[in-house]
C-alpha cells in the first residue's frame, strides 16, 4: 500500500553510527537501548568484582588481592582494604548501575510506551538527561576506587550501606573517595527521580483510548508501583547522603554521638530508602514474569486485579518494615516485635503472586522457549529466597543469622537469581522485538542451564556457612569454613561461563540476523508491542490504537 511506503520513508531513523542519535536522543526506544547496553557493561564490571571476591575466598588466607595492579604487594592492609572496596562497589554497581538501569531504564523505557499505546515518553528530553546522568554517576563511582580513601589506600571500603562513623571517620575514610561516592549516588538518585516523574506522567496521561488503569498490562503496573517507590524513597537517601557529606566536610554532627548526633539514625534513614529499594529491584521483574508466563501458557494472567494490587500492597508495606535490617542495634522488644510482624505480612502478597503465576500456567498450553525457562527458574529460586526471608524476619533467630552468609545467600537468591533471572527472561522475551532478530535457542537454553547450576552452587552452600557463623565482608576465614567456601567459588566459575555464553548469544544474534517478524511468540503474546513490526518503527502509534473492553491483559 502506498501509505506504508510513505510511512517507512518518513521513519527518520538515523544511522546507528551517528553519535548525535545517541547523545541527543529523545526517542524512548533508543534511550532504552542505551540503558540496556549500559547495564550490560556495568554488570560485567560488577560481576568481575564478585569474581575477585570469590577467587580470594576460595581458600583461607589472602592470596589473590596482592595481585591487583593498584594494591601494594608488601602491605597486607592494602589487600584487606582492597577487599572491602570490592565488596562495597560490587553491591553499589549491581544495584544502581546494573539492575535498576536494565529493568526501569531499559525495559521500562522500551515497553511502557509501547504497551500503553503511546508514541513516546511524556518528557523526551528529560528522558535523555535521566540516562546521561548515569554514565557520569558511574564514572564518579569508578574514579572513587582509585583516589585516596583510607589514608593512602584507594577507594571507599565501608560497605554499600555507607554506615557512619566508618564513612565519616577521618581515621578510616578521610580521603576524597567517599565524597566522590556521595556525589555519584546523588547523581544516580537524581537520574532515577527524573525517570520516575517521567514514567508516572506517561502512564497517567498517555494511555491509548480505552486503556484504563485496570486494563494495563501487569508490566506497566509493576513499573508504576516501582517509580512511586523511587519517588518517595530516593529523597530520603539524598537527605542521609547530604548529612554524611556535611558531617565529613562542614563540621555538622548529625551522626556523631560526641556532638549529640546518632549513628543509628543514619541506619534508620538509609533503610527507609534501602528497603523500598530492594522492592524497586524486583517489582519490574514481577511484571515481566507475568507477561512471559501468560504468553507461553497461551492463557491470560490469573487473578489480574489480585496481581496488580499485590504489587501495590508490597510497595506500601515495603515502606514500613525497614528496621528488620537493624535487629542487632539494640532497638528493644516492642520495636523489634512490630518489625517482625510487619515484615512477615509481606509474604502474603508475594505468595499470592507465586501461586497466581502457577495458576496462570494451570490449564494452559505451555511451550518452553528460553524466556519461559528463565521465568520458571525465577519462580522456583525466588521462592527459596522468599522462605529464607521469612526465617530472617524473626528477630530472635536473626540474632544468630544477622550479618552472616545466611543473609548473603538470602539476598542473592532474591536478587542475583530473582532480579537477574527476570532480566534475562525479559531480555530473551523482548530481544526479537527490540533488535528484529531471533536468538539462537540452543545457546539461550545452554546459557540458562549453566547459569542455573552455577548460581545455585555459589549461593546454596552460603546458607551453611552462615549457620556455622561466618560473618559477611570478611576477607579471610577460619579453617573450619574452608569446604563450602571452596564449593561456592567453584560455582562462580560455572556462572562465569554462563556470562560468556550470554556474550556468544549477543554476537550470534547480530551476526546471523534471523528475522523475527512482528510476533514470534504467537497467540499468547497479546500486548500492544507485538502488533508493531520488529524492530518497531522509529516513531510508533501515529494513529492511536483503541483498546476494547474484552481485550486480554
Amino acid at each position: 500500500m502506498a501509505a506504508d511506503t510513505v510511512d517507512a520513508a518518513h521513519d527518520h531513523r538515523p544511522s546507528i553510527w551517528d553519535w548525535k542519535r545517541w547523545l541527543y536522543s529523545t526517542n524512548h526506544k533508543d534511550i532504552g537501548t542505551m540503558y540496556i547496553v549500559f547495564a550490560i557493561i556495568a554488570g560485567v564490571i560488577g560481576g568481575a568484582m564478585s569474581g575477585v571476591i570469590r577467587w580470594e575466598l576460595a581458600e583461607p588466607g589472602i592470596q589473590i588481592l596482592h595481585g591487583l595492579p593498584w594494591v601494594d604487594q608488601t602491605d597486607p592492609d592494602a589487600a584487606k582494604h582492597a577487599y572491602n572496596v570490592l565488596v562495597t562497589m560490587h553491591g553499589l554497581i549491581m544495584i544502581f548501575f546494573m539492575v535498576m538501569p536494565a529493568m526501569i531504564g531499559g525495559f521500562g523505557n522500551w515497553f511502557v510506551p509501547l504497551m500503553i499505546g503511546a508514541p513516546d515518553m511524556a518528557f523526551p528530553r528529560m528522558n535523555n538527561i535521566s540516562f546521561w546522568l548515569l554514565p557520569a554517576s558511574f564514572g564518579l563511582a569508578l574514579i572513587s576506587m582509585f583516589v585516596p580513601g583510607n589514608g593512602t589506600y584507594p577507594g571507599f571500603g565501608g560497605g554499600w550501606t555507607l554506615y557512619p562513623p566508618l564513612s565519616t571517620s577521618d581515621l578510616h575514610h578521610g580521603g576524597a573517595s567517599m565524597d566522590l561516592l556521595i556525589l555519584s549516588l546523588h547523581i544516580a538518585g537524581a537520574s532515577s527521580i527524573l525517570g520516575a516523574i517521567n514514567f508516572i506522567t506517561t502512564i497517567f496521561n498517555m494511555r491509548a483510548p480505552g486503556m484504563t488503569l485496570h486494563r494495563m498490562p501487569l508490566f506497566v503496573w509493576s513499573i508504576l508501583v516501582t517509580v512511586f517507590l523511587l519517588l518517595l524513597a530516593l529523597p530520603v537517601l539524598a537527605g542521609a547522603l547530604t548529612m554524611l557529606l556535611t558531617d565529613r566536610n562542614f563540621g555538622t554532627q548529625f551522626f556523631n554521638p560526641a556532638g549529640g548526633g546518632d549513628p543509628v539514625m543514619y541506619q534508620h534513614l538509609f533503610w527507609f530508602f534501602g528497603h523500598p529499594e530492594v522492592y524497586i529491584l524486583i517489582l519490574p521483574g514481577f511484571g515481566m514474569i507475568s507477561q512471559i508466563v501468560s504468553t507461553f501458557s497461551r492463557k491470560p494472567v490469573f487473578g489480574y486485579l489480585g496481581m496488580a494490587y499485590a504489587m501495590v500492597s508490597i510497595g506500601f508495606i515495603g515502606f514500613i518494615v525497614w528496621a528488620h535490617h537493624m535487629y542487632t542495634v539494640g532497638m528493644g522488644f516492642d520495636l523489634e516485635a512490630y518489625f517482625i510482624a510487619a515484615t512477615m505480612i509481606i509474604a502474603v502478597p508475594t505468595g499470592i503472586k507465586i501461586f497466581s503465576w502457577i495458576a496462570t500456567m494451570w490449564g494452559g498450553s505451555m511451550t518452553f522457549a528460553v524466556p519461559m525457562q528463565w521465568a520458571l527458574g525465577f519462580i522456583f529460586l525466588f521462592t527459596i529466597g522468599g522462605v529464607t526471608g521469612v526465617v530472617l524476619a524473626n528477630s530472635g533467630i536473626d540474632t544468630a543469622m544477622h550479618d552472616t552468609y545466611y543473609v548473603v545467600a538470602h539476598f542473592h537468591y532474591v536478587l542475583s537469581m530473582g532480579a537477574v533471572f527476570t532480566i534475562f527472561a525479559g531480555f530473551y522475551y523482548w530481544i526479537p522485538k527490540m533488535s528484529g532478530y531471533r536468538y539462537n535457542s540452543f545457546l539461550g537454553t545452554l546459557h540458562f542451564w549453566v547459569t542455573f547450576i552455577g548460581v545455585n552452587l555459589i549461593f546454596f552452600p552460603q546458607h551453611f556457612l552462615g549457620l556455622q557463623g561466618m560473618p559477611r565482608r570478611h576477607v579471610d576465614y577460619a579453617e573450619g569454613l574452608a569446604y563450602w567456601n571452596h564449593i561456592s567459588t567453584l560455582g562462580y566459575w560455572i556462572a562465569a561461563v554462563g556470562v560468556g555464553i550470554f556474550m556468544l548469544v549477543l554476537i550470534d544474534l547480530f551476526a546471523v540476523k534471523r528475522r523475527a517478524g512482528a510476533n514470534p511468540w504467537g497467540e499468547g503474546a497479546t500486548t500492544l508491542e507485538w502488533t508493531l513490526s520488529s524492530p518497531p518503527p522509529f516513531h510508533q502509534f501515529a494513529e492511536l490504537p483503541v483498546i476494547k473492553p474484552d481485550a486480554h491483559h
Partner: protein
Amino acid sequence: MVMSAAAPAFAGQPTDGAINFQAPATGSMRQIVDFHNFILPIIVVITLLVLALLAWVMIRYNRWTNPTPRKFTHNTLVEVIWTVVPVLILVVIAIRSFPILHAQERAPPAAVTIKVTASSWAWAYEYQDLGVTVNSNLLPEDQAVAQQRPYLLAVDNPIYVPVGENVQVLISSNDVIHSWTVPAFGVKQDAIQGRTNVGWFNVERAGTYYGQCSELCGINHAYMPIEVRAVPRAEFERWIVEQGGSLEPPAEAAAETAPAAAPAEAAPADAAPAQP
C-alpha cells in the same frame, strides 16, 4: 599473660563441611536452634510444594499434553485459600518467635557483668565489680599454629566466665560500629559509640567459645575475634585473682551480689523469670 589452666576441651567453633548451627551452649541458643528446627521443615515443604506444582503444570499443561489452553482467570476459592493459609502459617511462626525475642531482650539478674568496649580492631573487657581488665587481640598466625589454636578465632587474652551463671555483657564502642558475637551463645549485639547495648548468656557446658566481629569496621574487620572460656566457678575465681582482681564485693553491694554468686541459686537460663 599466664594462662591459669589449659583450655577446656570442648571448642565452640565452625566445623568444616557442617550444614547447620554450631552446637548450642546456652539456653538462648537452644531456643534459636529449636525454632530453626521448627521453621526449616515448614519452608522446605513450601518450597517443595511450589516445585511440585511447577513440575505438574509443566508435565500436564504443555503444548503436547494440552493443545487447547483453557481461558479461566478467576477462582475465588483457591484465591481465598492461598491468602488465608499463609496468614495462618505466619501466625503460628510468630507465636513461636516472639518468646525467643522476649527471652533475649529481658536480661535476668546477672552474677557477672562484663563491660565490652570495641575499638579498631580489638576488644577490651572490664569486670567492673571484680576489678579485672582484659585486652583481647588477634592471636598472630605463627603463635596460633604453634599453640594449635584456631587462627582468626583465637585471641591472645581470652576472657573467662563461670559455667551455669548468668553473665551480662554491656557493649559499646570507642570508634566505628562493631558487633560482639558468639555463635554458640546466640548473642550478637552491635557495639555503637555513645550507647550501651545489653546482651546476656548462661553457658551450660564448659568449653572455649569463639566469635568474630559481625559489623564491617574497616581494614581489620576479619581480625578482631572473640574468645570466651566457660569454666567452673572455682577456676573462674582463680583466674580473677590471677588477673589481680578481687572477689570481695564492695561492702554496700555485698547483700545484692552474694546470692547470685552462689551456684545453687544460678537458675538455668531459660527457666529464669523474664525480668528487666
